[in-house]
């Protein structure tokens, strides 16, 4: 195989699995059951093997896709997200009678786009990857075609997503006009070579790109679509998109702003500072007022995006390592939490079972599920000894080291407030008796195993973070 193709082997594996899933669905006899989910797992396993093999090689393809350690670390996170999502999707597909071939194929295509986005080093390729993942996720959001809520969510998400892609594209056009190139390294060196005082065109380019990325990572004030899309989508999809899209978008955000636009750090840090502070505050304060668990977790994921922006502002070595660790910790935690919600929805009743009071009495009915949910919520809230605590600790340490004391203070305060709404569910589960007993479902074996695995990863990262953190630091040092 020509060596220039090496860097795209992981996403090629996933794409092949997606195409295979589509073909399998097309040739399926009506009523025949096919193991399409395991097909996706095989593709992801292939991607994992390829990523491990590429770890020390720093391969690049065509100069626009670089499988450096940063990209591969994010790819690894995405593979974990993919496996867990596929595992928790099965009960939702059964219950809602979703077309499973399309569902898995879209999820795998989205994953391939995310991997491409994490490894791309050219603005054109980043844009294409962004569209690949977005188009797949828009459809996944609305895959419950006969549900008015799901289609409304998909439509809002699509409209704002397309709008933000257009802004992003306009920003790329100005960057190209400024430098004559779309490669990040050339853009970076040309901007560094230009005059020190920022020109209006530089400001327009940076501003439009920030708007585009801020939509994708749902930073305030561009977060309006997030709660609606997360509530309307099936919770397994929500778990997937709240972690996968965010991980991929943040990876590209960091790569673009810390390589190509690093010379302009003095220009953009104030904007991102304000956005980070607003995101943390709005995500937490509005989250407190929610009664639906899904909307609450949507605002919680907005707030977590704010913590990641803190790391972007800090932009020192500690922050860069912390980001990767944070993305990993957040991914396993959030997928776990949405996995529990998926199982909760898996009852025969008409109501989706997603209000906070629906969790009442879970401990009596189903102690294992309640215990797992507790671990996920504590990790989201940042309690030791979970992954969430270590991740937040490193991000805030990085902010203090970089001299952004106020940002760290806002971060700690909002974390404390957020504990309130996470603990509200825990209190519901353990201390409030259920009003309508025996509503809780049996847990399918694969989904249950996925939840246990994510809980184990959370505790492992919380107790023994050193090794993974070393990897994170090593991978970041290779590019920035």
């Amino acid at each position, binding site marked *: 195989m020509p060596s220039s193709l090496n860097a795209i082997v992981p996403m090629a594996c996933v794409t092949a699995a997606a195409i295979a899933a589509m073909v399998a669905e097309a040739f399926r006899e009506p009523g025949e059951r096919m193991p399409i989910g395991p097909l996706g797992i095989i593709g992801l396993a292939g991607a994992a093997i390829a990523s491990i093999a590429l770890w020390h090689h720093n391969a690049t393809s065509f100069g626009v896709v670089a499988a450096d350690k940063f990209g591969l670390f994010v790819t690894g996170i995405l593979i974990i997200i993919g496996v867990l999502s596929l595992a928790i999707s099965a009960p939702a597909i059964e219950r809602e009678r979703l077309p499973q071939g399309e569902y898995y194929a879209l999820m795998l295509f989205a994953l391939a786009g995310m991997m491409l986005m994490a490894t791309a080093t050219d603005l*054109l390729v980043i*844009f*294409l990857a962004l*569209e690949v993942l977005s*188009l797949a996720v*828009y*459809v996944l959001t*609305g895959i419950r*075609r*006969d*549900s*008015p*809520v799901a*289609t*409304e*969510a*998909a*439509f*809002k998400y*699509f*409209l704002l997503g*397309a*709008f933000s*892609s*257009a*802004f992003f*594209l*306009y920003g*790329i*056009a*100005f960057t*190209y*006009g400024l430098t*004559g*190139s*779309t490669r990040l390294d050339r853009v970076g060196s040309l901007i560094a070579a230009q005059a020190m005082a920022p020109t209006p065109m530089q400001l327009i380019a940076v501003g439009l790109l920030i708007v585009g990325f801020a939509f994708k990572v749902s930073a305030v004030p561009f977060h309006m679509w997030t*709660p*609606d899309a997360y*509530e*309307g989508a099936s919770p397994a999809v929500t778990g997937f998109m709240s972690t996968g899209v965010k991980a991929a978008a943040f990876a590209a955000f960091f790569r673009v702003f810390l390589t190509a636009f690093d010379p302009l750090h003095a220009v953009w840090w104030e904007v991102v500072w304000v956005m980070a502070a607003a995101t943390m505050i709005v995500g937490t304060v*509005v989250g407190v*007022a*929610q009664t639906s668990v899904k*909307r609450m977790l949507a605002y919680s994921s907005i707030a977590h995006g704010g913590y990641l922006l803190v790391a972007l502002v800090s932009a020192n070595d500690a922050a860069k390592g912390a980001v990767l660790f944070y993305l990993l910790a957040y991914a396993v935690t959030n997928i776990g939490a949405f996995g529990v919600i998926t199982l909760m929805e898996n009852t025969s009743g008409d109501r989706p079972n997603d209000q906070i009071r629906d969790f009442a009495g879970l401990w009596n009915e189903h102690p294992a599920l309640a215990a797992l949910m507790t671990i996920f919520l504590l990790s989201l809230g940042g309690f030791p000894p979970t992954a969430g605590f270590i991740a937040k600790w490193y991000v805030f340490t990085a902010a203090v080291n970089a001299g952004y004391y106020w940002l760290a203070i806002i971060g700690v305060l909002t974390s404390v407030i957020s504990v309130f709404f996470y603990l509200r569910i825990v209190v519901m589960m353990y201390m409030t008796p259920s009003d309508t007993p025996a509503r809780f479902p049996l847990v399918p074996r694969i989904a249950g195993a996925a939840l246990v695995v994510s809980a184990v990863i959370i505790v492992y990262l919380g107790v023994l973070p050193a090794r993974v953190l070393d990897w994170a630091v090593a991978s970041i040092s290779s590019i920035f």
Partner: protein
Amino acid sequence: MLLSAALFIIGVIGVMVRRNIIIIFMSIELILNAVNINLVAFSAQLQNNVGQVFAIFVVAVAAAEAAVGLGIILAFYRNKETVNIDEMNLMKW
């Protein structure tokens, strides 16, 4: 450049003020075309053909986006029998 900026602004205003989802959708396509004009103009100015290639990619992506978008609009219309965004009110806050 001015033409493209004008198209961009018309598109943004269209998305903000119009109430019919099809017209909003058309406004987004207008913004994408503004980007294309911009890219080609820069390409001609810089004597560099990256911009033209990019514009072709944008056209392809816009077509894919239109297909997905119209599909979602159709699914939405079947459920609600309306194309007015003021009636998208199942979820708030």
